């Protein structure tokens, strides 16, 4: 949280206005909450019949429901983790290639990055799961199965180019002296990249990388529109179809997603704060890098679904 820039520390009159505003807002929000709760209660949405299977360990369906959810969480994490690792590796390769090739050699890579970044992730997942299968690429033999790898490849196709941009911005944000110094000490350009530039770029960009993990995690749910894969959202849907309690089930599933993603978001913030404190990365560098991360790897913010 940064300091508010719009107003000073308030004087007595300002504080009074704030108190009045607070009172009004509390009344309005409480009224709104009351209306929602009454609507829910009127529709019988608080009955244990609907909530029981999700929150009451004594309920006969409780164990089965949570077994489904556990499997869902595991599958979501598995797909996200594999896609993440692949994306980082491939993204780094693309970034390095883009940085070391000449003006002309870069063109196909730039095109690839722009195209993949401009496509909806759900379309890429469709390509991974359905189209690859139809054109005869058989992923079924791999451990995990065809849908899993289709999903992973779809997610990777999108996220590797996002990472490529993140890493490129990271390298670009390093002081020029780093590269010049490395070259002057006799390192080859390849060594300079590997030993000097990339490690620092990764460190600067670590928060952005962690934030992107949130996008990957959310995007695993897109597979539910394309094929059967038992990730968290699909499991939620089958629970909801069996118990006929959409509000309750989807609330619980949403809370699980929020808990996972919020934790990752806080982790990213913490890493960033730690870097700023440690002073390993000069403040200016972090600032430019983070702005670049916010604007450069474009759709990071609104990234996935």
């Amino acid at each position: 949280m940064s300091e508010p820039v719009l107003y000073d520390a308030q004087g007595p009159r300002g504080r009074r206005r704030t108190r009045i505003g607070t009172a009004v807002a509390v009344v309005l929000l409480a009224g709104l909450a009351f209306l929602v709760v009454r609507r829910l209660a009127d529709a019988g949405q608080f009955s244990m019949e609907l909530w029981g299977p999700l929150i009451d360990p004594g309920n006969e369906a409780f164990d089965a429901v949570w077994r489904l959810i556990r499997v869902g969480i595991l599958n979501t994490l598995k797909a996200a983790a594999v896609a993440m690792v692949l994306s980082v590796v491939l993204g780094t390769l693309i970034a390095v290639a883009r940085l070391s090739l000449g003006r002309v050699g870069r063109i196909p890579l730039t095109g690839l990055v722009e195209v993949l970044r401009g496509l909806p992730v759900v379309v890429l997942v469709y390509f991974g799961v359905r189209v690859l299968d139809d054109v005869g690429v058989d992923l079924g033999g791999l451990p995990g199965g065809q849908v899993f790898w289709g999903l992973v490849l779809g997610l990777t196709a999108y996220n590797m180019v996002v990472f490529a941009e993140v890493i490129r911005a990271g390298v670009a944000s390093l002081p020029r002296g780093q590269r010049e110094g490395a070259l002057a000490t006799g390192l080859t350009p390849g060594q300079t990249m590997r030993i000097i530039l990339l490690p620092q770029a990764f460190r600067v960009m670590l928060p952005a990388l962690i934030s992107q993990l949130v996008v990957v995690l959310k995007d695993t749910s897109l597979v539910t529109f394309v094929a059967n894969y038992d990730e968290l959202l699909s499991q939620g849907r089958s629970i909801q179809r069996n118990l006929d309690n959409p509000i309750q089930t989807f609330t619980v599933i949403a809370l699980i997603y929020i808990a996972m993603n919020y934790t990752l978001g806080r982790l990213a913030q913490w890493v960033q704060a730690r870097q700023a404190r440690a002073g390993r990365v000069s403040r200016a560098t972090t600032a430019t890098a983070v702005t670049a991360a916010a604007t450069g790897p474009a759709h990071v913010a609104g990234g996935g679904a």
Partner: protein
Amino acid sequence: MSPVFDNLDLFVEGFLTSLGICLVAMVGSLVLGVAIAACRVSPVPPLRALGAFWVTTFRNTPLSLILFFCAFGLPELGVNRSFWFFGVLGLILYTSAFVAEAVRAGINSVPAGQAEASRSLGLTFGQGLRTVVLPQALRTVVPPLGNVIIAMFKNSAVVGAFGVGGDLWSTGQTLTSARGLETLPIFTGVAIGYLLITLPAGALLQVLERRVAIVR
């Protein structure tokens, strides 16, 4: 690619439907997002809490889950509307959180000294906001906000996948599953449809970014 050209009219129709979803969702999420951002930077604690709650909830939930919640949850409460309505509503809720974050970051990026200086010059709060803080904030907000809107256009595919019907994605689905056409050419056509918007929009945004950039 002939399956695409044979059905070009369907593709064009789908493209326009996608665009329509986006225009409505764009207006909705910009209005809602700016309101949420205003809550988050206001001096009133409950409003700040509301803003933080909103952003945390909708940014960390997959859009697909929000859509399911709207489409299956709301009818339980007696809200019966079309899938189109629920789809656009879900897209607005989801995108508003990202709009709010972009706007808030823009406002916070204006150095405190600017507002302080405008106050010491004797400008009122409103004048300072209008003539000093907001013009600078708006410029910083343009690039991230543009990215959010581009991402929203891509996310309209999710809204289509969820069953709105008639948009670019659904056109591809209909042609491949109902009519049994091959997936590769059809979905290449779908992909090109999305690129037709996202690539020029991205390029435009870069130009705009250079135009409005402020050197600090």
